């Protein structure tokens, strides 16, 4: 019985010693995670948790503030709101996924989709193009449907060959 009581006491002492350390580490991780979502406001354009350039007048204060809010148990949304209120929307390290900023996130996807559609369209057009059967069939066609004669192309090619050397 005494033995069990001793073990229990030992576990309690260990837990009391370790738990604050674990909590401290968790808070530090949270500061790092949340701090990674904001920019340092000294003008360097670096992430808050990464800004360490000499003479920075902002990052230490901002991190201190962030640490206090995290210790107080504030949610990420509350902290974000507080930072935005204090420094404006330039504090974001990445644009929020709402409102006008959503465009920043959507555009790369739009570029890719539009580009891929264009590439597939070009491929299908090139595949449908008839084999060069004769001089006229192979002649390049302008956007307006006018055919430049193969003769003109060859003349241009001959001129280029005559007038230039590699």
């Amino acid at each position, binding site marked *: 019985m005494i033995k069990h009581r001793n073990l229990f006491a030992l576990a309690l002492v260990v837990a009391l010693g370790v738990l604050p350390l674990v909590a401290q580490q968790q808070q530090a991780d949270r500061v790092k995670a949340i701090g*990674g*979502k904001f*920019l340092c406001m000294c*003008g*360097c*354009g*670096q*992430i808050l948790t*990464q*800004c*360490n*350039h*000499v*003479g920075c007048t902002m990052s230490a204060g901002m991190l201190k503030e962030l640490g206090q809010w995290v210790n107080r148990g504030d949610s990420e949304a509350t902290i974000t709101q507080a930072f935005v209120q204090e420094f*404006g*929307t*330039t*504090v*974001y*390290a*990445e*644009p929020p996924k709402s409102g*006008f*900023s959503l*465009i*920043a*996130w959507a*555009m*790369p996807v739009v*570029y*890719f989709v539009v*580009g*891929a559609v*264009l*590439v597939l369209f*070009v*491929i299908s057009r*090139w*595949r449908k*193009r*008839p*084999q*060069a059967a004769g001089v006229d069939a*192979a002649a*390049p*066609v*302008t*956007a307006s449907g*006018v055919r*430049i004669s193969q003769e003109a*192309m060859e003349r*241009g*090619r001959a*001129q*280029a*060959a005559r*007038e*230039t*050397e*590699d």
Partner: protein
Amino acid sequence: MDVFGSFTLLLAFACAVYAFVGGIAAIITRHPLLVKSTRQAGIATCVLIFIGTFSLEYLLFSDNFSQAYVVSHSNRDLSAFYKIAALWAGQEGSLLFWSFLLAVYVISVLIAYRHKNGELMPYVGVILAGVQIFFLTLNNFVESPFKILTAVNAGGVLEPFVRQDGNGLTGLLQYPEMVIHPPNLYAGYTGFTIPFAFALAALLARYPGEKWIHLTRKWTMIAWCFQSIGILLGAHWAYAVLGWGGYWGWDPVENASLLPWLTGTAFLHSVMMQEKRGMMKVWNVWLVFCTFLLCILGTFLTRSGVVSSVHAFANSQIGPWFVSFMLLTLVVCFVAYVKNHDYLRSENQLDSLISRESSFLFNNLLFLVACIAVLSGTLFPVFTEWFTPSRISVGAPFFNKIMVPIGLAILFLTGVGPLLAWRKTSTDSLKRNFTWPVVVGALSAVLAYFLEYRNAISLVCLFLCGFVFWTIVMEFYRGAKVISARSGMSMMMAAHELSMRNTRRYGGYVVHFGMMLIFIGLAGAAFNTDVQKTMNIGESMKLGPYTLVLQSADTKPEKNYTAERMIVEVMKGNKQLMLLYPEKRAFAGRDQQSGTMVAIYSTLREDVYVVFAGMDPDTNLPVIHAFLNPLVKWIWLGGVWVVMGTLLALMPNRRAALVIAGATQPAASAVAPALNPSVTLRERHD
């Protein structure tokens, strides 16, 4: 010397105007004397720019503190090495440096082609002169580097004034790489002017598309090589000096340097479509136009301060000049295209979706999407200011999220491209070619997993690196095997012979190998860790498997700065590995100017990266910030391979006669007679 420098730049401007106007007249009249005189005016412009640039360097070296530029960017104690770098440390000097590097290219082109391409060169000369006029306008009338220092005297009148010493060079630039990084980057920016000038000239002269490609191939590769070196050196500088533990922060100026590199890389690939199949002529012309415009945009972003950046050493009002020049260039390109685009039509058809041609199309799509995504992300804060009441920042997390999938897709195509045949690839060929690369890729991922690199994106990246690596090995192996069988050479010699016979193709594979190494390095970024601790002398901290012990601290006075050093011992277990000396420097000349100097213990597996972050204000003890960055060294190694590959690609191909001579050797004689040498040589030259 300042008046002399000013005068030479003014004269250079006059010569450039003559080269431009006279060049147009020469194109119209085709008068040989006019053609010759405008070419000589172009050469004179370059020589005068050289003299103007050397005049500014002379003023910097002679500590002439009557000059505003010298006072702002130099001081007496600044070493000669950094006095060279002071040339591009400020707005005025860097714009003059742009003109200087452009003049190096222009004079090389004008002299190299003085007896060649007689009909095309007047067009090229006019376009190059046009670009020079723009920069000389800035050098002479907007941001002159030869302004004398003035002060208001007791009577309220401005009069010349001589300072005893200068402010010195900004601390961030007092690092050896800063003497070579900007020249490389600028040489890349300016170098793309040459393919641009030839492309536009060929379009104006109504040449069918292929000719300018042949003429500018080497110039494009040279510019691309400089741009690549510049970007990598910039990344290394950021890593070793800024002290935040990373090498790429998606800073607007970093992004600006990446944009023309992306389109330039797309061009280097798509140009092969035009050479081999007569396709994508319009696309290639526009890629070169865009690359040039992005180079100008890059210079504009660096110099105008339109988006805030750690690089924004010089902000000024040159923005409208750059915007006007870009718009004017765009209009000229567009008009030339609309008038003459009939000569750029594709003449070939695509046989199959699964072909080398398609892979190039998708490769170009990805490079372009990457370019536009980076550009729109970089300029997004400016757009938000226009359309909303507040400015919204776009930082590294955004770019990482966007660019990682695009980068992986490009890496995938790097491996896939060489495995696909031109025109059409059969299913059997696909199976045969893909099996081993996929197996090696899978083994790489498994190995990475057991080496504790357990992150989904990193594992995909390392799988693709293994895949690409094996495709490159297979390409060399197959080619070398044929040569070895025919000539009796060892495989190593045969691989060397193979590379020398088609330097462009195999140089390209070496570049791909370098890029693969860079991607291995990038995959390590997911596992970066760091620890920051206020330490007393003798105290230690753990960083992964390493123990860092703060041994002592000292102060090291140097000529132009005083360094406060921490001496940190790196240990692994009980074994001492290295002493590191992270320091903080207080520079002479400028008030409060200071900088960090990171100390790095670098291995192939990881970097121990130690920063002296300053003194703790509460305890007055040093704060040490240490990072464990896996695989970073692979990035720098990859950079070396990229440069080597480009240099190989720039070498002329070894003559085919050597192969035929080799085929007469006894070991090859059994195989060679059945082969037609010319056919055998041509079949691998794609």
